[in-house]
């Protein structure tokens, strides 16, 4: 018996221990509700999902990507090679141990990078505790195993090999102990999460951003206790590696509201365990006191529970956290599930949300305004009703922004552009009810379902080719969320349609000398619908100097207007739109182009040193008007 074969045996022993721990971890997910999972397809897809989809996210931080590739790759390769040493024909093979030595060397470099990132100072987004000890264990296991392998290759005499064996065993054992409740859990849970992901469409190129309809016949609506989550959601929470990318991306966290998506996922991961490990990352800003009790049948939300209600009501459902999460965790689904229980079973909604929810229900419009008044903004402009025409090419969906003065100006510009381009358009007028976006994000699935069905019935009575809207929230609901209720439509955002009209020459544009401009991506257009190019193409046609904010495209930052956050109005230390406006100003832009009524309202509400807020439609109309020679017939 030499040190090398002893290492092989130790690794086999560790693997057995690992399997035992893994079974213990997996059994805890059993408290969750059943979920239909296509196991074979899922398991077979793990390599592709890992190498393509996960890597796509991880690679945004090249250091982390290299670090992980070296450490994880070296760990798996080195350990597997070392175990091969037990196969008789390979036993004692120098070539095998030379390969193993290379693998462990690579792993050691990765382990060193893990440490380099955390010492001497640990970045705020990373967790301490066991996470801070992780690099020591990694270096111990890799370094020890490297010594053993070198010993086998070079026939070193003396105790070096045995010393390596002791260090490697200690390190390896320490790592295995971190499987159930420590950093190493992400490896096991993460791999299974890729196989059993609740939204497999994410990996097939689908948008998969629509909220999943709640079962309104269930005995309990939404999620009250951890056991109400489907088991693969619990698995997802366990996959979190506490990398803090979501924390950095979260607008509510940045504004000092009591929400930190990383801490939230950790609370949820601990919620179904009786004695979860202590959390050692950054807390919820202005954290409210909670009792902090957990257990599979214990309530999750409440001052006497685990998560304060203000935490879940701070979320703008911007999906920045989901976009950034390398473990593919679905924060927004979890938050909306928790909200659904609060809203539909307890009526425990923030005071500011009561009126919009009631009005959505009893007046089919969150502001309680007359549906017929939605077209008031257009006074004087031709706005044909589809009820009078019966059919049209483009059905203009006005949305709740039409009642607001600010968005009314945008819509007037858009209607004027449609008229000039000779589009056959119409509106539903008094037949357009609210699309239900606000109610749904606030957890009132019942009201949303009523509105969806009523709107779908109305739309079913008319013939049109596509729906046009200047409101990305309505766009998302009509395009992605109505299909589950039987409404299938081609929905186009005004940025895409205007781009199309400009491209085929139906709108002639003249360069508008408007100075430097930056474009703010609406979350529901960029992240939810992947539409980040058309608005930019359109703006570039205007001949402006367009600059990008640091956070743009699918990684853009929210304006603070989504998810019912403006009505929930959970106080923070700063305001989200102020932060975003400062980012826009930092580019030196004198205009910030928006493409959403919420963004316009939020950003225009910023005071002080601000850029001018103009919707794409307004900018395009100005360019079209500049292109018409003075006095020429239009």
């Amino acid at each position, binding site marked *: 018996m030499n040190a090398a074969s002893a290492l092989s045996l130790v690794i086999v022993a560790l693997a057995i221990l690992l399997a035992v721990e893994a079974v213990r971890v997996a059994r805890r997910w059993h408290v969750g509700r059943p979920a239909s999972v296509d196991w074979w397809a899922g398991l077979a897809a793990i390599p592709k999902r890992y190498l393509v989809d996960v890597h796509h996210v991880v690679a945004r931080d090249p250091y982390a990507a290299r670090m992980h590739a070296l450490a994880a790759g070296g760990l798996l390769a080195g350990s597997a090679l070392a175990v091969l040493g037990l196969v008789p024909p390979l036993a004692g093979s120098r070539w095998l141990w030379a390969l193993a030595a290379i693998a462990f060397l690579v792993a050691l470099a990765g382990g060193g990078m893990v440490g380099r990132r955390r010492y001497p100072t640990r970045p705020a987004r990373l967790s301490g505790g066991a996470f801070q000890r992780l690099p020591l264990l990694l270096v111990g296991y890799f370094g020890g195993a490297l010594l053993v392998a070198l010993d086998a290759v070079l026939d070193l005499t003396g105790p070096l090999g045995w010393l390596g064996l002791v260090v490697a065993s200690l390190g390896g054992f320490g790592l295995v102990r971190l499987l159930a409740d420590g950093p190493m859990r992400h490896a096991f849970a993460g791999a299974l999460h890729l196989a059993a992901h609740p939204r497999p469409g994410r990996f097939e190129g689908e948008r998969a951003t629509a909220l999943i309809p709640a079962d*309104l016949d269930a005995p*309990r*609506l939404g999620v009250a206790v951890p056991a109400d989550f489907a088991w693969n959601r619990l698995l997802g929470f366990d996959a979190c590696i506490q990398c803090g990318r979501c924390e950095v991306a979260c607008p509510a966290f940045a504004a000092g509201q009591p929400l930190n998506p990383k801490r939230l996922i950790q609370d949820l991961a601990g919620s179904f365990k009786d004695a979860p490990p202590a959390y050692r990352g950054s807390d919820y800003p202005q954290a409210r006191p909670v009792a902090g009790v957990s257990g599979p049948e214990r309530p999750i939300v409440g001052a006497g529970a685990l998560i304060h209600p203000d935490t879940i009501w701070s979320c703008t459902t911007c999906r920045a956290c989901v976009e950034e999460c390398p473990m593919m965790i679905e924060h927004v689904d979890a938050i909306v599930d928790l909200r659904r229980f609060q*809203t*539909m*079973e*307890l*009526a425990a*909604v923030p*005071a500011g*949300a*009561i009126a919009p*929810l*009631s009005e959505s*229900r*009893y*007046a*089919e*419009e969150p502001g*309680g*305004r*007359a*549906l017929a008044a939605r077209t008031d903004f257009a006074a004087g402009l031709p706005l044909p009703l589809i009820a009078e025409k019966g059919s049209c090419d483009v059905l203009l969906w006005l949305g709740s922004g039409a009642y607001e*003065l*600010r968005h009314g*100006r945008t819509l007037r510009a858009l209607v004027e552009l449609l008229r000039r381009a000779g589009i056959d358009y119409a509106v539903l007028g008094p037949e357009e009810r609210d699309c239900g976006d606000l109610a749904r994000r606030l957890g*009132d699935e*019942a*009201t949303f379902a009523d509105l969806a069905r009523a709107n779908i019935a109305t739309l079913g009575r008319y013939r049109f080719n596509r729906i046009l809207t200047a409101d990305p929230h309505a766009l998302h609901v009509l395009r992605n969320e109505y299909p589950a209720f039987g409404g299938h439509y081609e929905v186009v955002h005004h940025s895409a349609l205007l781009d199309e009209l400009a491209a085929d020459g139906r709108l002639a544009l003249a360069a508008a000398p408007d100075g430097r401009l930056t474009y703010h991506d609406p979350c529901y257009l960029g992240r939810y619908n992947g539409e980040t190019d058309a608005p930019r193409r359109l703006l570039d046609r205007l001949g402006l100097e367009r600059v990008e904010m640091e956070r743009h495209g699918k990684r853009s930052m929210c304006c603070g207007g989504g998810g019912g956050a403006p009505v929930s109005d959970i106080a923070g230390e700063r305001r989200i739109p102020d932060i975003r406006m400062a980012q826009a100003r930092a580019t030196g832009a004198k205009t910030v182009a928006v493409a959403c009524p919420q963004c316009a*309202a939020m950003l*225009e*509400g910023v*005071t002080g040193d601000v850029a001018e*807020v103009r919707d794409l439609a307004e900018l395009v109309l100005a360019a079209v008007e500049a292109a018409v020679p003075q006095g020429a017939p239009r």
Partner: protein
Amino acid sequence: MKALVLLSDGRHPVSGRPAPAGTELQAIALARGLTEEVAGLYAGPDAAAARTALGHGLARLEHRRLPEGDDPLPSLAAAIAAAAPDLVLAGRRAGAGAQTGLVPYQLAEALGWPLVPDVVALTVADGVLEAVQALPKGARRRWRVKLPALVTVHPAAPVAASFAIGMARSGHVEDAPGIDAPQDGTALEERPYRPRPRLIASAAAGASAAERLKAATQSAGPGGRVMVDPTPEEAARAILEHLRALGVLKPAPGRD
């Protein structure tokens, strides 16, 4: 302690759809602050609007079926006598539809109970109700009355709970025939609901949100003058000047 909330056949003031009346929902919230045992009572043909109250925290609704146009009073009085609640709460005034706001008073008279109108807060101790009543201009008055009693709820009471479909599903309705009480067609005039316009100065159309906010907040109200201990002559002169400035009185004779 048992509380009963009177519900009406409400309509949403704008959409005209069946909807609970706001003050009745506030009554439910006030009653739930006093006791677990809160039921609703509605007498009329169709309980669609009253049923919605189940979703706002009412566990049980008693519906007394009546033909269209019948007077609900006898049915309500009989149901109250049978249920023997300690406290009956009602909304303050007609919200929409055929509501007169008189029913609570007629009921109080029929039952011989005291009535405190426009309450915003309630507490009960030893069978005595302490009610805070809202008076104009934010003034408040405290009443102590022996139970059983009737109160009507003022819109300044704490906000009502939002609608929760889960509660609406688990609440139940007890349906029983009411006491027919046909009334001769009372001459009622129906007018569409119109909220009073709020007077705010408006900025030019096309102004930014900040400019509109400024316009709305800076020039609110006609301003005024505070005089401390003026002589009666001074005071009279100031009032006359003000009324002239408003155009209520003709300009002073003998000037320009």
